[in-house]
């Protein structure tokens, strides 16, 4: 099973657990399985069908553009790290405002 | 439209004439009127040297000279540095020393360095640094530029 390192800001949802072994062949499956064990985690990581814009997924240290579709190996380590904004990715990724907060 | 003035001058060894408004700088005339875009605008107020040209043998910032002032005078730009036989030693040494990265400041540096070597063929490192202090480069840290100029000075010396 892949090992998911739980970001410190989510550890309140995992009863303080820092790393969790989770089944899944893709990042999406991993997050779904994580959600099954620790309800609320998915909402913090995923917005609709995409990883939230200010978060990047690193598999064994490499950040991939494939998001939820990315393959995960049994031996993989998964980290959720801040997405880099302002051009290291091609657009500022840390910019997110909820649609509900739209200005009148 | 403001009235344009007819100006005749020598540019890189050739007689040219052009029309310009009094408010147009030599830099604008070169780039927008005469189509010589080798001289660059970096600051348009005499603080970066990217527009360096030689006016009657004297190094100047072409952004701080009006086109109308060049009447009857001689201007040398980066386009006039190489000869039909090949590159000027400064140009060759800039290439060999990798003395350029983005290249936007390079024409100004080569024109300014030529003005230096014309006046002082054997400059010290300090003299090169002092002379070129009005030419900003943000890519190289100047190291390779200074080496290229010092090397070109030696080459020119050997030829002379």
């Amino acid at each position, binding site marked *: 099973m892949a090992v998911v390192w739980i970001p410190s800001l989510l550890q309140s949802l995992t009863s303080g657990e820092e790393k969790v072994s989770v089944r899944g062949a893709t990042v999406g499956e991993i997050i779904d399985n994580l959600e099954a064990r620790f309800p609320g985690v998915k909402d913090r990581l995923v917005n609709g069908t995409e990883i939230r814009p200010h978060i990047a997924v690193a598999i064994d240290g490499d950040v991939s553009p494939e998001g939820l579709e990315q393959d995960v190996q049994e031996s993989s380590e998964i980290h959720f*790290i801040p997405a880099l904004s302002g051009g290291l990715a091609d*657009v500022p990724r840390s910019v997110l*405002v909820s649609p509900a907060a739209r200005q009148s | 439209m403001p009235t344009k003035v007819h100006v005749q001058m020598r540019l890189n060894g050739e007689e040219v004439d052009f029309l310009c408004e009094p408010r147009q700088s030599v830099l604008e005339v070169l780039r927008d009127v005469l189509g010589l875009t080798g001289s660059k605008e970096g600051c348009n107020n005499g603080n970066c040297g990217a527009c360096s040209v030689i006016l009657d043998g004297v190094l100047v910032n072409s952004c701080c000279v009006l086109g109308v002032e060049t009447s009857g005078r001689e201007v040398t730009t980066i*386009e006039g540095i190489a000869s039909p036989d090949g590159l000027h030693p400064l140009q060759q040494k800039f290439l060999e020393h990798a003395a350029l990265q*983005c290249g936007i400041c390079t024409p100004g540096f080569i024109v300014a360095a030529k003005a230096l070597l014309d006046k002082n063929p054997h400059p010290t490192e300090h003299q090169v640094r002092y002379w070129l202090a009005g030419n*900003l480069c943000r890519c190289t840290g100047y190291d390779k530029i200074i080496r290229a100029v010092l090397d070109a000075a030696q080459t020119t010396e050997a030829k002379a």
Partner: protein
Amino acid sequence: MAESATYKVIGTRPIRHDGVDKVTGRAIYGADVQMAGLLHGKVLRSPHAHARIRSIDVSRALALPGVKAVVTSADLPPAEDRTIQLGEGGVNLKYLSHNILAGDKVLYKGHPIAAVAATSPHLAEEALALIQVEYEVLPPVLDVREAMQDDAPLLHDNLKTTSLGQDTDKQSNIATHTQFKVGDVEKGFAKADIVIEREFTTATVHQGYIEPHNATAMWNPDGQLTIWESTQGAFTVQRQLAPVLGIPVAQIRVIPAEIGGGFGGKINLYLEPIAAVLSKKTGHPVKVLMNRAEVFESTGPTPGSYIRVKMGATKDGRLIAAQAYMAYEAGGYPGSPIGAGMMCIFTPYDIPNVLIDGFDVVVNKPKTAPYRAPGATNAAFAAETVVDELGEKLGLDPLQFRLRNAAKEGMRRPDGPTHPRIGYLETVQAALNSDHYRTPLEGPNVGRGVASGYWFNVGLQSSVSINVNADGSVTLVEGSTDIGGTRASIAMQAAEVLGLKAEEVRPIVADTAGVGYNDVTGGSRTTFASGYAAIEAAHDVLRQMTERAARIWKIEPQDVSFGDGVFRNAKEPDQRLTFKDVAAQLGRTGGPLTGRATVAPRGVGGAFATHIVDLQVDPETGKVTILRYTAVQDVGKAIHPSYVEGQMQGGAVQGIGWALNEEYFYTDKGVMANASFLDYRMPTSLDLPMIDTILVEVPNPGHPFGVRGVGEVPIVPPVAAIANAIYRAVGVRMCHSPMSPGLVMTEILAKG
């Protein structure tokens, strides 16, 4: 693939392919683009740092003879306040659009409001003065800590702090809070024999590229838009323009001209949409150029910051705990490089207990843009100064102290992942063994400082195609704009694979219609990732060339081998065809041959640097003179060593400028008082010695030739190294950058 460790092309220093054009003035940069019927655009910018726009009246400007069009944000499609996906990233469309032309609010002095197209740039400028804007001026907030206060003026009506997917309910200037945690810092500090805590501030600084931003647009009546400009990423411009203008990507062609420096600052959209809508309105091509003041006031910069660092070590010289509180100014819209700063601050070290909290905060300054290892220099200034002080208190040589705590392969980074093969240790050892460090420094008020830095580098996506010519030379088509010799470093990698000379590969930077998708020249990725694509494309060429050779010999391709530029028939050892021989027969063996590769390589190797600086402080004026400087860096494998050295020297000098004199000087109304190269003081040739370089080559296992990105990490150590050297020279610990003469003098006088 099995690349030989002894290279024929890699590691040599050929003259760059675009060199002659650039030393003769013939290279065409964005501002050099000329075309018939060209109109000139100028942009009206806010004189206020923070204001509501009540009304804009353009009628008098439009009435000026020679003025052809005026545009405001009303000429862009309505910018919805929602996140849109662009490839692998999301962006708030309203923020993106309103930074180009302000909506109802201006958020910094220089914020664009309207633009004019006229028959001459002077006329366009005259017309700007005729546009009447009515403002409701609001109090600005210019400092990150003030902006974080509960009673600070709010820039956005709808911004709430996001903390890993969770929104607070309170409106705030704090856009995000991020945290990294390893072990337990409280327990760590309890075990420490010595703990040092310091606060650091850094001023806003600019990338300072010599070429101002530019864009020329032609919007045809059929909706096809072409942009000519200097940009670090033509495809990035294309992708962002599409939603801003509300047209499909395929209708936009971005043609990158030569680019006069970027350092991260020429990635965001600024002038492109303005030139586009002016062209649409006038039916003419429109060129818009910024002047230097506009560049300072409306583009870049990199954030001012507040950083608090606490580190603890044991008596035996081991770092045991480290904590950082980091707040970065994002400018008018969210998106500072706080995450990158957090990823770099303690990464050179193996520390069992780490806690890092980072905040992205909006202030009334231009929206920040990346600047060479964005966020990392601020971070290293803080951490490396505290490391220096710990080493001093422990009585250890600063490099030996770093050596004792250096991160190595397999150790865990504070942000979680483990280090692959890295060369930090090797840079410290090389610094220790350098002539510079072994030469005693003597004289009054002189000091030697060292500091290290880390930058993770990025990979992203690149495309390359290689066309084989009939004479055996090849044309390499790539999509990475060449800011500092990457045509050469990419072509050399293809040449190595193909057994050609560097000069036999002609590299061309194509536009968005001429090559597959390609991410920006940034993140130190170009020689790594576009080089990777060039290697793959070259192998594709060889596969196809092998088939052609097999066809000539009427054998199976697997019976053809290639080496040293020669194809051999395994069955008939006498039969050999050179690359040129096969190229000459392409027409008879199946037609033209193009090799292609598109890559999104993993295995990006992080980069470490250790710098040594000797300086002298004038004790009566506080002015610092750099006497000697050596930059040591793990460069993986230097493809073209001259340009690797150039990156190290250039990065070091930008860092020196940052450390000593560069800063945005703001009035209390939020106006930058020094928006010129006269008073924004970048180093001149007279301010510097030669910059020595030591290239340490620890090959990156993630790249066929071992390439690591080299461009960014050299800007990380200098500020801290200089602060540490100033301490050695005159005994004052500098906690603010820039360490300008007045500030150093103040500290010297305060010390007494």
